[in-house]
C-alpha cells in the first residue's frame, strides 16, 4: 500500500497543475501582506472606528498576527477552489488521460488503488494548507512584527502575544481538517465524471451554495444549517475565542469527519463498480 501511495505522490507532485495552487498562494499572500504593510493599519482603524469613542487602544495591534489571522479568511472560498483543482483531478484525470486502462488491469484491487489516491489527496491538502500557514504567518511576522492579537469576530477580543502562536498552529490543523472535507467532495465528484473541470465546478458550486445558506440569516434556512458541512468549516475560528468552546470544536471535527467519510465512501462505491469506457 505504501508503494502505491508513493507512486501516486510522484504522479501528483510531478504534475504541473499541482503547483497552480502553490504558485497563486506564493504570489497572492506576499502581495496582500505587503499591501497591508504599506496601507499602514487603516483597515484596522476603520474596523475599530465606532469603538474608539468608548475604548482606548494601546500597543501595536496592527501586527503580523492580525494580518495572518485576516489571511485565514481565504479558507472560505479561494483555498477550497485551489484544493479542488488537484482533488478533482485525482480520478477524473486518469479517465481524461486514458490511463485508467493502464492501471486498472493490474492484479491489485480497485479499493487499494482508490485508497492510495485518496491518501495522496489528503497529503496534498495538508501540505497545501501547511504551505499557506507557514507563508502567511511567517511573512506577516517578518513584515509587521509581533504583538497582541486583536480578533474581530463576534465582538472584539484581544489575545496576549504569548497565547497566540499555539492557537495559529491549532487553527491550521483544524483548517486542514475542514479542507479535507472539501477535498473529499471534489474526490467524490471526480469518481463519476471523466473530466476534471466537472469536479471543480461541482465542488465550488456546492460550497458556495452551502455557504450562502449558512450565512444568510433567513428563518427558512435555520433548520437546514446544522446539516450542512459549510456550517462547520469555520472550526478554525473557534480557537481564537476565549475561552475556546472545545465541545463545539469537537462537534465540528466530528461532523466534518463524518462528511469526509461519507463522501469518500460514496466515491468508493462508485469507483469499484465503474465501467471504464474512456
Amino acid at each position, binding site marked *: 500500500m505504501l*508503494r502505491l501511495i508513493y507512486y501516486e505522490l510522484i504522479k501528483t507532485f510531478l504534475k504541473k497543475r499541482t503547483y497552480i495552487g502553490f504558485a497563486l498562494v506564493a504570489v497572492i499572500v506576499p502581495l496582500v501582506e505587503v499591501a497591508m504593510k504599506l496601507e499602514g493599519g487603516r483597515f484596522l482603524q476603520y474596523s475599530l472606528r465606532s469603538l474608539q469613542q468608548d475604548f482606548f487602544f494601546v500597543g501595536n495591534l496592527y501586527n503580523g498576527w492580525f494580518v495572518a489571522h485576516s489571511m485565514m479568511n481565504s479558507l472560505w472560498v479561494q483555498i477550497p477552489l485551489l484544493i479542488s483543482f488537484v482533488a478533482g483531478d485525482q480520478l477524473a484525470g486518469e479517465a481524461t*488521460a486514458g*490511463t485508467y486502462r*493502464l492501471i486498472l*488491469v*493490474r*492484479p491489485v484491487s480497485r479499493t487499494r488503488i482508490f485508497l492510495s489516491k485518496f491518501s495522496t489527496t489528503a497529503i496534498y491538502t495538508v501540505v497545501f494548507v501547511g504551505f499557506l500557514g507557514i507563508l502567511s504567518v511567517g511573512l506577516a511576522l517578518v513584515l509587521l512584527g509581533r504583538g497582541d492579537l486583536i480578533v474581530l469576530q463576534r465582538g472584539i477580543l484581544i489575545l496576549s502575544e504569548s497565547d497566540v502562536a499555539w492557537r495559529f498552529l491549532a487553527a491550521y490543523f483544524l483548517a486542514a481538517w475542514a479542507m479535507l472535507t472539501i477535498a473529499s467532495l471534489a474526490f467524490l465528484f471526480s469518481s463519476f465524471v471523466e473530466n476534471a473541470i466537472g469536479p471543480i465546478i461541482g465542488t465550488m458550486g456546492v460550497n458556495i451554495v452551502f455557504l450562502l445558506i449558512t450565512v444568510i440569516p433567513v428563518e427558512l434556512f435555520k433548520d437546514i444549517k446544522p446539516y450542512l458541512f459549510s456550517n462547520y468549516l469555520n472550526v478554525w475560528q473557534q480557537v481564537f475565542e476565549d475561552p475556546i468552546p472545545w465541545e463545539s470544536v469537537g462537534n465540528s471535527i466530528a461532523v466534518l469527519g463524518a462528511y469526509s467519510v461519507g463522501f469518500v465512501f460514496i466515491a468508493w462505491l462508485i469507483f469499484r463498480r465503474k465501467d*471504464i469506457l474512456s
Partner: protein
Amino acid sequence: MTGEIILQTKNLGKQYKHRWAVHHLDLEVHRGDVFGFLGPNGAGKSTTIRMLLSLIRPTEGEVFLFGKSLDREREKALESIGGIVEKPDFYGYLSAYRNLEIVGALNGGTTRKRIEEVLSLVGLSTRARDKVKTYSHGMKQRLGIAQSLLSDPEFVILDEPTSGLDPQGMKEIRELIRHLAADQNKTVMLSSHLLNEVEMVANRMAVINRGELVTQGDVSSLLEKGEKSVAVRAKPLEKVRQVLSGQRGVEKVVETAEEFLVTMPFEGIPELARALVREQIDIEALVPRRSLEEYFLAITESDTREGTSKE
C-alpha cells in the same frame, strides 16, 4: 493446438441500455496459442477485451482466466496477464522508465533490470528517460507492449497493437508477437481488423461481428472453409465479361474498379487463362486468393457485397 485452456468466456455479454455490444460470447484460448480475435470496427472486440481485463463488468456470463473466475478471484486471475487496451495512453509528463515503474508497483513490484529488459525488447532503451509526451504514436505502441510484458506474464492480450503504425512498424510488431510466442512461450491474444495481419501470426482465431461470435477454430481449417477466388486484371473489359460469363466452374463474379474477383476453384485457373488468351485478351494479372481476409469479408460483409452470379 489443444493445450490447457487459459481463457474461457461463457455466455459473455455486455448491454448498454437496449443495445448488446457483446452477446452470448463463448471464447477459448489455449496455452501456446497466438489467438487472432477478428472483427470489423464496432464489432465488440474492445468491449470484449475490456471485460477480459476487468475494466468493465459483464451484463451476463463469466470470464475464466487460468481456471479462475475474474468476478470472484479478480487479483489471482489477473496475476499472469499483461495487456493493452485500444491506444496505449501513459502519463505523458513522466518518462517511459517512470511509467513502467508505476505499472510495476501495481504488479506488486519490479526491478530496474526488468524495466530495462522490456524497454530493450521493444527498442526504446535509448529513449527511456524521455517524457512520453515526446514519443511518436509508434513509440507509444511499443511502450504499450513493454508495459504489458513487464510482469513476465504467461498470457498477453494485445488490442489492435499495430493500429496507426506504418508498414515497417506493423512488421516489427508482428515479429515481436512471433518472438513472444515462439521464444518466450507466451500465449498471445491479438485483436485486429487487419485480417492479413492475423493470418500471418495466428494459429487459432475467432471472428466476431455485431457483438456475436461468428466462428472460432484453427486458422488453417477455417481457411479451408473460405471462398477460393481469382482476381483477374485484363482488357478489354467487355471481352473479359463475356469469357467469364461462359467459363466453366465460375460461381460468382464481382467487378470492381480495378479487377474482376472471380469465385472459382483454383484448379480452373489454367483453363481460364487459356480462354482469355484465345480471345486475345491482354492479361495483366491472374491472382489466386484464399486468404483469411476473403473469408472474413465473406462472413461479415455478405449482406453489403454486391455481385453478379453466374448460372
